[in-house]
């Protein structure tokens, strides 16, 4: 697994569960254990369409990170592989 922070566009209109505001890249995080956390702390009430971006901290597999890096909609700020320390 990799941990990274990524700039992503918003999607949705916030009017329902299915159309909630959220990062576009959420759709790419489908492998077990992959996920994201909003680290902007931006209140929903302050969401604006322009600029339509925010930052999420992501945990994902290497293949998913490769796909994100190859996608021009996203900008990877940093990434680090999770390595178990020897006990």
């Amino acid at each position: 697994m990799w941990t990274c922070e990524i700039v992503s566009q918003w999607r949705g209109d916030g009017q329902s569960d299915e159309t909630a505001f959220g990062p576009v890249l959420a759709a790419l995080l489908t492998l077990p254990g992959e996920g994201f956390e909003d680290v902007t702390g931006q209140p929903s009430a302050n969401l604006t369409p322009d600029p339509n971006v925010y930052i999420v901290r992501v945990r994902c597999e290497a293949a998913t990170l490769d796909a994100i890096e190859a996608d021009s909609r996203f900008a990877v700020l940093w990434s680090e592989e999770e390595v178990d320390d020897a006990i």
Partner: protein
Amino acid sequence: MGLLRTGINTIGAIGLSLMGGGAAVMGGLRYLLRAIFDAANQGFANGQVLDTVAEGVQDGQLTVVEVDGTLAIVSNECAFTAQGTPAWGDLGLVGEALGGGGFTKVLGRGLIVTFNLSTWEEMGIGWHTAAAVTDPDNMPYAVQANATDGRLDLEGGTQIWSGLALNTDHKWIIVLGGYNATGEAWYTGQPTANYVYGASHYFYDGVNWNLAWRDKADNTTPLYAIASMLDGVGTVELPSGIPTADLSAVLQPVVDDTFTDANGTSLDAHVKEVGGAWTEQVGDWDIQGNKANPSGVDGQVDRATMDAAESDVLLRVTCNVGQSVTSDKLGLILRWSDVNNYWFVWLEEIGDFLRLHEVNGGVTTLRAHVAATVNQNTAYDVVAIMDGQDFTAFLDGGNRVAYGSAALNETETEMGLRSKQSGAITNNNQFDNFHVHARRSAIYDATLNAV
């Protein structure tokens, strides 16, 4: 503290740990006193202050008491050799007021000793006042061995353990603990006199240990309740007046609902085991099969809430994913104020995920997501932890979502259930075992660490 009266018995190490300005820190423990007696063989004089490594003391100091016997370092242990029949206080090492070592009896401090009894004698550790070594203050303990076994006594004659072997190293740990008048536990660094209840814990070797705990009637009455274990078989001795409710008050949930009621009972008429009434915010909820059962109206987001009286809580619920044609979603409502302002954590069978959403002014925002397999007609354990603006939630103790800026409704105490199914519904989503624990209890940190 005193280490008192014995035949030719030894102490391998003494440590007094935790807190204190200027204390040494070794191996993660902060020692006010540490004596491992790893020094050259030597005898001690009555009244001698031991405060150097050459005298066997790494940190702090001990004062030798040899009124009726002698002490010496022999083979890296402190050997006690009695002369006659020493009374309590006539032979030993003193580390508190008598010796001026600088540490006092306060909550949170621990005393660790390794000892070995070679003959039928008595040996003990404990806290007591300088004026009354035979009437120790709160923490009097003795180990007494005869030809075949021994026992661990509280001063005053209450035997709490037997089976102590001679010529064997034993480790003995006492930690002073207590509750204040409002039931808050384990305040470190406080004089025991300020506490309504006191407690002391004793652990004995690997498989043989004792736990002492009791009501503290005053500042000079021994404190004890006893749970002992010998070779894996535990027994409990509870003196009268033990405030067991104090412990349970910490561990018991503030809300507990197993939804045990007759089929068809409306949820807002159902009485929980612990906690107040449910409010059906959206949809008609009832009890079916001892589970909370939402309306089952196609496409409707059913919501039911109740007041947990706490905003920083751990919620745990069993989510029984039902079966519909399009999607089955269900989860927990957190910090609800109205239908347009609250949080919810939910799992979805079609999307295969656990998510945390914020509903703020009617606008819904996805704050955290983790992919996880969610199947129809399957039960899942969902836990949500709220601590100030930090939210964390887990699915079956593993998959985790978190968000650290949950400013909305930070002090709201209304929590609840949320369900939505779409398309023809074969089986309703259902909920069971709804529990809320106040976040003030440390058990939630343990829960966090366990996943």
